[in-house]
């Protein structure tokens, strides 16, 4: 296959960026999208040109490091028949001769570092505001001391599957991180161990979310449609229910 790429190139956070065109030949259908970018980078290196910077690590769709906007959709969601991360998108989904636009996540809270690499430490900051259960090492009772109903445990798991890639923010016209935040809220709210901090958690995580410059949710739903782990929009409803309930409780700020 022959592919034409138009890739966002930006030397650093303050430099002016632009889309540049590249041609890659000898692309095979079995290659992943990132392996195709590897091929381009090998080509650029041999031409003494600067390779394209992009984040990636596990290449199994689980670490959440990779993520670029492909033809306008985070992780190339609309080029793939199934929800995917960029590393699990394969070239068999593109036609020979395709022209593909590749851009970084764009959101005020995710400043660009270089080319397709952005700074997502704001996600860590949201977790720091309460996305945990306070259980010091060594203080735990026996794991079977508190059974957890399977239905709720499964729901907790569905939300804990979030990989923190940031596609939801990139897809949202408001650059809201509400889907990410609600996944953590719902994960912990469904478990018996998560109850003591349930209402203080939702208040402080939302407060931090807003401080960091993420926008509000207006129920557009783009986030859930591009999410590689299929975190449902319903999780945001769960967050809102907990947040409203929290306003009538003395817990937290």
């Amino acid at each position, binding site marked *: 296959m022959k592919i034409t790429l138009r890739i966002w190139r930006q030397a650093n956070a303050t430099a002016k960026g632009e889309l540049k065109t590249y041609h890659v030949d000898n692309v095979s259908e079995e290659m992943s999208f990132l392996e195709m970018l590897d091929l381009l980078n090998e080509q650029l290196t041999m031409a003494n040109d600067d390779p394209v910077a992009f984040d990636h690590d*596990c290449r199994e*769709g*689980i670490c959440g490091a990779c993520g670029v906007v492909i033809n306008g959709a985070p992780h190339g969601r609309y080029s793939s028949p199934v929800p995917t991360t960029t590393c699990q998108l*394969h070239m068999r989904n593109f036609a020979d001769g395709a022209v593909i636009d590749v851009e970084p996540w764009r959101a005020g809270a995710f400043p660009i570092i270089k080319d397709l690499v952005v700074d997502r*430490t704001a996600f860590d900051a949201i977790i720091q505001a309460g996305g945990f259960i306070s259980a010091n090492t060594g203080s735990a009772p026996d794991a079977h001391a508190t*059974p957890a109903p399977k239905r709720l445990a*499964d729901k907790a798991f569905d939300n804990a599957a979030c990989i923190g890639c940031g596609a939801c923010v990139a897809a949202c016209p408001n650059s809201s991180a509400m889907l990410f935040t609600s996944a953590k809220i719902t994960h912990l709210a469904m478990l018996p161990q998560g109850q003591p901090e349930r209402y203080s958690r939702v208040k402080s995580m939302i407060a931090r979310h807003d401080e960091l410059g993420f926008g509000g949710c207006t129920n557009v739903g783009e986030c859930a449609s591009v999410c590689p782990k299929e975190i449902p929009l319903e999780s945001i409803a769960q967050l809102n229910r907990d947040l409203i309930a929290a306003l009538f409780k003395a817990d937290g700020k």
Partner: protein
Amino acid sequence: MTETETRTISEAKADAALSFYTLGDEISDPKAPTGPVQEKWSTRKFEAKLVNPANRRKLTVIIVGTGLAGGAAAATLGEAGYNVLNFCYQDSPRRAHSIAAQGGINAAKNYRNDGDSVHRLFYDTVKGGDYRAREANVYRLAEVSAAIIDQCVAQGVPFAREYGGLLDTRSFGGVQVQRTFYARGQTGQQLLIGAYQALERQVAAGTVTMYNRHEMVEVIIADGRARGIVTRNMVTGAIESWLGDAVVLATGGYGNVFFLSTNAMGCNVTATWRAHRKGAYFGNPCYTQIHPTCIPVHGETQSKLTLMSESLRNDGRIWVPKNAADCTKDPRQIPEDQRDYYLERIYPAFGNLVPRDIASRQAKNMCDDGRGVGPAVTERALDGSTRQVRRGVYLDFSSAIKRLGKDKVKASYGNLFDMYEQITGDNPYETPMRIYPAVHYTMGGLWVDYDLQSNIPGLYVAGEANFSDHGANRLGASALMQGLADGYFVLPNTINDYLADATKHGTIDESHPAVTEALASVKERVDKLLSIKGNRSVDSFHKELGTIMWEYCGMERTEAGLQIAIEKIRGLREEYWRNVRVTGQNEEFNQALERAGRVADFLELGELMCIDALHRRESCGGHFRAESQTEDGEALRDDDQYLYVAAWEYGGEGKPVLHKEPLEYKFIELKQRSYK
């Protein structure tokens, strides 16, 4: 041939290996208390010195890595009140490669009432490791395993549960009880997120300071003690030193020396190799685990291999056609009596659940025998001849789907099937999956004592980065157990013993010659890499190294092959330092430069792995020497000569020095491993 004659020949060959290394003094683990194995850990915890809570905040612990071992240790030491500096090369601590572990975590809970116990987990792990692990360490691992599950549940890790609300477990390779706890096929992710959340809680509490996108590139050793590290800020290129009272390396394994492996692209040996160069012994570098159930290689541009969880072997059946002529047929058209379910045939007791090393080697044997499936690839033998080989075997769920129904299979393995389909374009519900072994885990790592301290005082090593608990082969679902055992329960109890004397050790500052020397050497190395401006990319060297390692130091190793490999690696390393092309400069986000430093270290490690494999003229676990096998092709140990840990001291430009740590088996009888 008499026994004496056999011995003389093997000594003569050992001498040939001796041209690659020299023999140093024997060493021993000074920290494990004497006495019954059941009491060692409680004795050690009692005897280890403590640090007063008020003094802890005055002490700084540097932790490199944020996976299960590093993240758990940072969180726990933060909770204890130490001042922790935690570093990772990723953009967030949540991305450490522990996250990719799929199948599960072992614990001796005996919730199934199926005869499990601490002693049985201990026994299974020692046996699974082919009697090349320390008894004391493995017993402790089994002992703390139950507390790990408790801790994780308390943190909100969503383990799989049964309808009664209690935890579900399943079976894994090499054992006959169901002691593996799991969270669908994403157990590593859930455990890591648990540790990550505990870590972020400490960041918020101010006890841990997190440095993302900082790669450790040197260790600082002053007056014989580990005092700090040097990092490169991967965004700005700034090369900085960090000083503390102790340094913990929890930087994972070195499987990427093979280029293609199931490791993340960034996994590397640099942290531990830099420590090795400064005097830390490297234990058993040749012990690598080749995982039997990975998706086969698709072509030259492949960048990594994807694992399919071992849990698939609970219900999937592995087979190849009985006749080579059937290998190109649609597998669904091959009748039942023409299929060779070779693991069930050879190992009736364990069947498809034999340990990984055995399952992998048998897959290789079937393909060598001409009965592999999938596309044929050209392979070159030692004598230069080439042949076409199909590298794949079937993993078939059709009988499980018949027995359990598609929905039940989907509930247990759905995400793995989806992943397979996404990567290969084939639907595993319809047609058997194709799998082949791939490099997955490295049992070797920096040598540590019972306290997880290396031979350099103040330098601790945890998780996959150390060599300690798995012997020559790791059982499935034991890596997560070891990482969290080290991070939550072992290290936080043993490191106090060293930190209690911190005031006696004194402090050093940035003007200390050890600091300025470390900074200068890092800068010099970076400048050198950038100045070569050669004709080959970093990746092309890495791929070539990987090919050499896989060919000669992979699933089967020979005397002749290993010597060829050493020669080839030396040549490649020489070329690297005069012909590598690293684009850009240091003072920017430069991924080519990051990779260049890592590959330079892999080029040194690869040679040591081959020397270690050459010197160990026996087969044990994942280390299979073609010259040492039983009549039916199983690994044949030589306990008289090789019942020891090989701890290698860096030899600089000269030869590495071998220190043997003899292994003693007092509580488990040494015998030939059998899974038949």
